[in-house]
């Protein structure tokens, strides 16, 4: 798998896993992307 694809996967995972707590140490939660607003 190319580096580009691996990074893309990592970024998507970061977005999906951050839907509740934006960042561990701090407290920032920007507006979610439309595609992630579906509450599963």
């Amino acid at each position: 798998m190319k580096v580009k694809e691996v990074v893309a996967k990592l970024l998507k995972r970061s977005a999906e896993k951050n839907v509740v707590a934006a960042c561990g140490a701090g407290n920032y939660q920007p507006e979610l992307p439309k595609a992630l607003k579906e509450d599963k």
Partner: protein
Amino acid sequence: MDKLGLLSNKVVTYYYKDYSDDEQEIMGYGLRMILVTVIDLIAIVIVGLMVGVPELAVTAAISIGIIRRFSGGFHASTYVRCALLGTVVCVGLGLLANYLVMSINRGVIFILLWLVLMIGAILIYSYAPAGVKEKPLTALPKRVRLKISSFIAFFIVLLIDFSLYLMLEVDSYVLSSLFGVVWQIFTITPLAYKLFNKEYIRVDSIRKGVSR
């Protein structure tokens, strides 16, 4: 959108032209979250180094992060405020732990561990997962999953704290981690939302499946 968001989107759009708009938006958001976390941690380490408690500040940040990942809690409105709040809280907790470890005896720390375990479990049962306006968490299965995960994360952190206390006797780390847990539990309560002037999204009616 803030500058960090614009920068993330630009980077993603530049390198991932062949991806769909939805995918680019998600990846831009993902990059933004990574950058916020990295900026936060760097700020905590730098300020922690300046006041002499970098390891304790990072310990508090890790404890907060592990539980926060599932329990949620109130959020700052911009990443600058997020970095500031995260830094002040984590370094402050590190300093407090560093100060208290010299002035209280080990028995008090043991009592604190049990107190946090009992009160924390009640508060997680009552308020986790705490949603925010941007992500109110309305789906029942997800809320149940996150509540269970919050409990597991909470117990794992406390188990580590108990183990460190009993086996390694690194009390400053135990206290710092414990204070991180206390702060994180506090951020899921309606009181914290009120004090920081945030809209509290009530998601505690799991049995009824109602979100108000």
